[in-house]
């Protein structure tokens, strides 16, 4: 077992091609990350049951259990460690499958080293921010309109007594909005903070997530009192509710 501080710089590389695995690991080490490796899906799951890391670089075409299955298993087990998929298939359908399986980002082989390192840094930065922003008892919890959100457990008890599991993205959006409660937050800001740069090209994605949050937390999602649309700009979150 390692300390949380070490975990925050540790990356698990799951790749069955020895050359590619070695290349990726050497570069991550050169960037100052601590690196662990697994050559197939089962070994990766086994490792993750005992150890923690800040990011998983996950090949899709693995022998036995493939990368998507590994990611889905992790999410089902409640493991929210971010995943960057590497795959030889770069078509959009595959990309969508990856993100649906609970991946954070997706890179097609062959990839550019600089882009790979940039994406790794971006994912870790987002998670560093999220972790730091939920570090204290006060910032780990949010209550508004009868809803209680636990940012560390990705869980919420809503106004009607239901317990809801939040996805990482929902929790991150809620975090950004809560940090800027009462202020206008633009869609672009939300995209930048939650997704990094070009994973989702559309600001519509943000709108869809806001709809999901309203459905979860608003008593009347059609007439929201907490997640307000500011036409042409973005959104404003009001913890106490619109008067």
């Amino acid at each position, binding site marked *: 077992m390692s300390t949380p501080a070490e975990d925050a710089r540790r990356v698990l590389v799951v790749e*069955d*091609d*020895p*050359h*590619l695995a*070695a*290349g*990726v690991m*050497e*570069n991550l080490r*050169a960037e100052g990350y601590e690196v662990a490796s697994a050559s*197939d899906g*089962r070994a990766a799951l086994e490792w993750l049951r005992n150890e923690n890391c800040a990011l998983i670089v996950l090949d899709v*075409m*693995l*022998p*036995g259990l493939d990368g998507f299955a590994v990611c889905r298993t992790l999410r089902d087990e409640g493991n929210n460690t971010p995943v960057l998929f590497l795959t*030889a*298939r770069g078509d959009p359908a595959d990309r969508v499958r990856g993100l649906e399986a609970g991946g954070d980002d997706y890179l097609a*082989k*062959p*990839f*550019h*080293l*600089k882009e790979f390192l940039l994406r790794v840094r971006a994912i870790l930065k987002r998670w560093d921010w999220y972790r730091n922003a939920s570090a204290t008892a006060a910032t780990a919890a949010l209550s508004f309109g009868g809803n209680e959100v636990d940012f560390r457990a990705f869980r919420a008890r809503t106004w009607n007594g239901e317990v809801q599991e939040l996805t990482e993205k929902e929790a991150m959006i809620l975090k950004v909005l809560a940090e800027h409660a009462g202020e206008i937050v633009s869609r672009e800001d939300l995209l930048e903070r939650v997704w990094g740069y070009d994973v989702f090209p559309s600001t519509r994605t943000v709108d869809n997530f806001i709809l999901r949050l309203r459905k979860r937390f608003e008593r009347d999602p059609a007439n929201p009192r907490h997640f307000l649309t500011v036409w042409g700009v973005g959104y404003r979150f009001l913890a106490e509710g619109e008067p």
Partner: protein
Amino acid sequence: MKATRVFQLTALALIVVSAVQVGWWVFDQRAYTIEKAQAARALYADETRAAQALLAAGAGEARVRELLPDIVVDAGQARLAPAVESALLTEAAHRYRQYAWEGSFFLLALALCIAVIARALRAEARVLEEQDDFLALVSHQFKTPLASLQLSLETMALRPLAPEQARTLIERMLADLARMELMVTQILESVRLERGRVDLRSEPVELAGAVARLLGALEERARGQRIALTSDVAPGLYVLADPLALDVIVRNVLENALAAVSPVGGGSIAVSARAGNGEVELSVRDSGVGFRPADGARLFEKFTRLHPGGGSSHYGTGLGLYIVRRLMQLAQGRVTAESAGVGQGACFVLTWPAAPVPRS
């Protein structure tokens, strides 16, 4: 859609319509025959009644027979003559038989046509699907060594490296290139075999020399992967084969053995040969990943890539052993593979017809 496919589908539709027509014709003719027979019977029934009326009116039997020749009078009772009765039955039976024979003949012929066309359509679809799979697989196979090459080069471009690090990267890149070259060779070989464009010679080939040459070419790579190559092939064993095909076969089996041993961190590959019963056997035994005994035959199928975990590995195109089997078949030889199980190593045995020792 291609013109031939449109033609095939149209022909298929026409034949199906024809088959339905034949079925309808048989049914219709049968109904018609029944109708005709009933009409004839009704007519004879009228005649019988008429005869009975004549008898009742006091006409003599001879008069009745003269007026109604199909009716016989038996003890004052008129009835249809047995000959006419049996002619009626025979006629109906004859017609039914005719429809049954003709109908089933045409239906059989049409069904045969349908089967032939459907088979052709299915075979064509399978070929197209295989080609698609092949293209997808091949491009996918190339992406991994390409990604590794790009990564190595970009690493060198991105940061200054110590000489030994640079050395490692260069060796890695050379190995990636060798991987791609092998893939290209195997793909070309398999396409040639597939199209039947092979013109194999059959001449005495000295086995020990060929094996030594191939082992020599792989020695350095084997050393790099901590694999001990040993050979025990007595000089003077001649097999009847095409020298180039024999090279391809043995090289592919050796490549397969290397790929099986390198993931377990090194080991051994031992080549040996023996002669007997007019044949020569070459065995390649490795201490690599092995395979489930049940997979022994599947190994030689196209695109089969077995992995210790049971899935497919990134290594190879899945064509190497397929090429080996095809070439061995063409050379009147055979190849078998055995393994005690995953992790137990494997043994590939190539068998050629023995050739007489050339005099020169």
